[in-house]
């Protein structure tokens, strides 16, 4: 079950030349030239996967309650809006606390993802568990793969 995420691994986006591959091996910076890469710290991170009957969108939004995320689908664009409050408050007397690291994103966010054609937004569902939202967008019936039987002549 924990290998699941590995299925998102799509490998090198294009055939890179050997020298660049060698450099990437040293520098571990393959994402920099990947069009789909997002800047570090983007919130929330999004994975999209496709199965035969649906497209599934996984939104990695730790600490976001289901009511804090708005999910809209319009013209095959999925828009996620929400707000995550900063965990760091000041002391009771209003003085700031010493902060050693502040890496977690906070505040309002909007992210939009283009979806493939042929999805039935009417039947879309969303679930939430352990800080991950799963949005299931079923394909329209006429676009599902079907097998064609060969009849005897």
């Amino acid at each position, binding site marked *: 079950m924990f290998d699941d995420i590995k299925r998102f691994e799509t490998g090198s986006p294009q055939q890179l030349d050997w020298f660049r591959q060698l450099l990437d091996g040293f520098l571990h910076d393959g994402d920099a030239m990947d069009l789909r890469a997002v800047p570090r710290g983007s919130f929330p991170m999004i994975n999209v996967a496709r199965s035969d009957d649906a497209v599934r969108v996984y939104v990695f939004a730790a600490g976001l309650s289901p009511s804090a995320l708005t999910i809209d689908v319009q013209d095959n664009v999925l828009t996620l809006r929400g707000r995550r409050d900063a965990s760091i408050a000041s002391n009771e007397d209003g003085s700031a606390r010493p902060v050693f690291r502040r*890496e977690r994103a906070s505040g309002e966010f909007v992210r939009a993802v283009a979806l493939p054609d042929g999805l039935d937004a009417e039947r879309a569902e969303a679930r939430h568990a352990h800080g*991950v939202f799963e949005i299931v967008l079923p394909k329209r019936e006429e676009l599902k793969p079907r097998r064609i039987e060969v009849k005897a002549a």
Partner: protein
Amino acid sequence: MNNVVRSSSHSPRQQHDQEKRPQDTLLPAVDIVEESDVLKLVADMPGVTHESLTVEIDNNVLSLEGDIALNMPEGLSALHAEVRGQRFARRFNLSHEIDGDAITATIDNGVLTLTLPKKDSHRTRRIDVQAA
């Protein structure tokens, strides 16, 4: 002859796999704040459950590790992937003023909160000035 060709054509791929392995582990984003008698560490670990999380302290090194446990059906193929690892891991060196035995941890909604109490000798205390 076949063997020679096979081994030479396979070894780069194996090396490549080994190089890729460290990337499977993601670094969780953390906030660390000091309060009067505790340090608070908050880490984003979406998809990590209470069962798949381990928090360990060894020799003043605090290590957080958690597997991303997603319930995904079979037969999925990726269209777009920003999260490209299956576990979170991060280590911190604790300073000597932290009381390692009294650390408490909770995970809620993919957010891990650690409370690291300071040792008694390092707590802020107010000293009353007595009237002369």
